Every structure is written in structure tokens, then in C-alpha cells.
């Protein structure tokens, strides 16, 4: 695989960077990145990953574009209201960069379909909007040994970390062993969120994904980043591996995806 003349031109501002170069740009071209959720986080992440020349981008989402999405889900537009988000997203990303492949999966991820799906990709970005999916994605990426870049948000606050237990780092369950029971933590799209926060967090996810592919810079796999948009504060806290983790610990309880992942969606 090589870069074409038009690709060399398109990515010239990358190629002149010492940490990217032609070799790095080829790595991006060969990379396959799966976005779980084509919503608030998936939109900005998808736009920049497509522009950056990630060769294959997968979009998985079961929803259709709703008017209330457009305050933050910038991959979609008034013109694609009512269309599946993955189709709307594919159109936008292909328009930015027709040289890459976009795969659209109009479905919810579940314990049956997730492993075959993540197995086809190198890196997964979790931009889902519920705990059921987040724990399922963590566990599936653990079993498939795929690096997972996880971001989430609530009102004015975002969290970000990279999850790669196959490289000796902690998993999501090392950080949060169990999802909250229904009713204790708002976990649905019905909760308010500052639209632009989705941009900040989704772009940080894209940036970490690109660094993972290039193998450059510092990873955030041993930290949790917390961004408070109101206070304008970025803080990092430590994120150690839990030896008693039910998934990646020394005596794991979770050995496959057969557990009940359902967390009801109530506030």
C-alpha cells in the first residue's frame, strides 16, 4: 500500500510533521477504526478521523437523525432528518474524504454481534450513550484485544481514557467495576448536555486514536481525564489496574459476554 499523488497533497500538513511523516500517514491509511455511536462524540471524532485519512472507518448506530440531535451531532444535518445516523454520517464523511472506506452498520450492538464487529477493526471509539453498551464494549474489546478509546459526558462535564489491558493497562471495570443500578445516575440522552462539549470530548478521542495508531506521544491509558467546561478545568487522576477486577484481574469472574448487560434507562 502506498500513498497516491492526491493523498500526498491532501495530507501534506501531516506528512511534514516529524511524528507523522509519510510512514505515519500510511499507518493511518492502513488503520481501521470503529465508532460505536454516530452521535455527539462519534460526529466530531468521525469528521477528524476521516479528514486525517484513516483508511477504514466503521459507524455503528441503530438510531435515526432527530431534530434534537443537531445541537451537537455535527455529522448530521437538517437535510438528513429521519435517516439512519450511519447513512447520514457516511455521506458527510465521504464528502470530506472520498479516498477512504466508510462502513455503515445500522444496528444496536449486542452480545451476539459485537465480537465479530470489533474483530474487523484495530481501534474502537466508544461514543455510546448508555452504561449497557459501555460495559459490553469494554468486555468485547478485552476479549478481542482491541484498544478502546472511551469518552463520555454529562451536562458540562466529560471523561476520557484509553483502555488497553492487552498492553498491561487497566480496563474500564478496573475504573468502574459495575454499572449503576437504574435510577441512581442519569445515563440517557434525555439528560442535558452542552453541545460543544461533545466536540471537545470527541476530538480528544480522535486525537488519542491517531496517537495510538502512530505509536507516538503519551498515552492516557493509566489516567482518567476529567474536563469541566464551566470551571474551564482539565484534571487527570490516576487509573491503576485492579488486581481484583472481575474482567482483567488475576481471578476473573467474567469469561465471556453471556452476562446480563441490561441497565434500565431511567433518571
Amino acid at each position: 500500500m502506498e500513498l497516491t499523488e492526491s493523498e500526498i497533497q491532501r495530507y501534506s500538513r501531516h506528512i511534514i510533521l516529524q511524528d507523522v511523516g509519510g510512514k505515519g500517514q500510511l499507518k493511518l491509511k492502513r488503520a481501521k477504526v470503529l465508532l460505536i455511536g454516530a452521535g455527539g462524540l462519534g460526529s466530531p471524532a468521525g469528521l477528524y478521523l476521516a479528514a486525517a485519512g484513516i483508511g477504514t472507518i466503521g459507524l455503528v448506530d441503530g438510531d435515526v437523525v432527530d431534530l434534537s440531535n443537531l445541537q451537537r451531532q455535527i455529522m448530521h444535518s437538517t437535510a438528513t432528518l429521519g435517516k439512519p445516523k450511519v447513512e447520514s454520517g457516511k455521506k458527510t464523511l465521504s464528502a470530506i474524504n472520498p479516498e477512504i472506506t466508510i462502513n455503515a452498520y445500522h444496528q444496536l450492538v449486542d452480545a451476539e454481534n459485537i465480537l465479530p464487529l470489533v474483530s474487523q477493526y484495530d481501534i474502537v471509539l466508544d461514543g455510546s450513550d448508555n452504561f449497557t453498551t459501555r460495559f459490553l464494549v469494554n468486555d468485547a474489546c478485552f476479549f478481542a484485544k482491541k484498544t478502546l478509546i472511551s469518552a463520555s459526558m454529562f451536562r458540562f462535564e466529560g471523561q476520557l481514557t484509553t483502555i488497553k489491558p492487552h498492553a498491561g493497562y487497566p480496563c474500564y471495570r478496573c475504573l468502574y467495576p459495575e454499572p449503576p443500578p437504574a435510577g441512581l445516575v442519569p445515563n440517557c440522552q434525555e439528560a442535558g448536555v452542552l453541545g460543544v462539549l461533545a466536540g471537545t470530548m470527541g476530538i480528544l478521542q480522535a486525537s488519542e486514536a491517531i496517537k495510538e495508531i502512530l505509536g507516538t506521544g503519551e498515552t492516557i491509558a493509566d489516567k482518567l481525564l476529567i474536563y469541566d467546561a464551566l470551571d474551564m478545568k482539565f484534571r487527570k487522576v490516576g487509573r491503576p489496574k485492579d488486581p481484583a477486577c472481575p474482567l482483567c484481574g488475576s481471578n476473573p469472574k467474567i469469561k465471556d459476554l453471556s452476562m446480563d448487560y441490561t441497565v434500565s434507562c431511567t433518571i
Partner: protein
Amino acid sequence: MIKVRIPTPLRPLTKNQGEVDVTAGSIADLVNTLEASYPGIKARLCDDSGELRRFVNIYVNEEDIRFLKGKDTALKSGDEVSIVPAIAGG
């Protein structure tokens, strides 16, 4: 004095304050002190048996107390405590 960082989901209980100052010798002490000033906050942090919930992390400075001494983790003046619950919005 210990600075406690209150996450967005719990701010309705602290009159929307993102940071509150308390005096406490341990995390258990801090939870009870917070509860006295902001009733209802303890139930968000601890389950019925008084154990810290598994989807809410508490950090002293930058360390997760689950990897220190849990609720018995000692606090000293000048420490910064952060309460960080799992959030799922995307």
C-alpha cells in the same frame, strides 16, 4: 481544610457549588460531614450498608481511595478530594 470537588450530577445537592471546603480526618468522616451540610449526598455515594458505591470513585489528590485504604483513607489539611461518578452520555 480539605477541598472537595463535586461532580455535575451531585451539584443539585450542594446548591450548585462545584467545590466545597470541609474539615475531616478520613474519607468516612468526610462523607458524614458532607451529609450534615448537604443532606442526601451520602446516599448517592454509599449503598444501604454504608459501603462506597462501585460506580462512584473518590480520589485523594490523584489517587483512587480503592487502591489506598478505602473509607479509612486518612486526610490532612490541604488535600484535594474529587468525587467522580461514572457517566455514560455520548
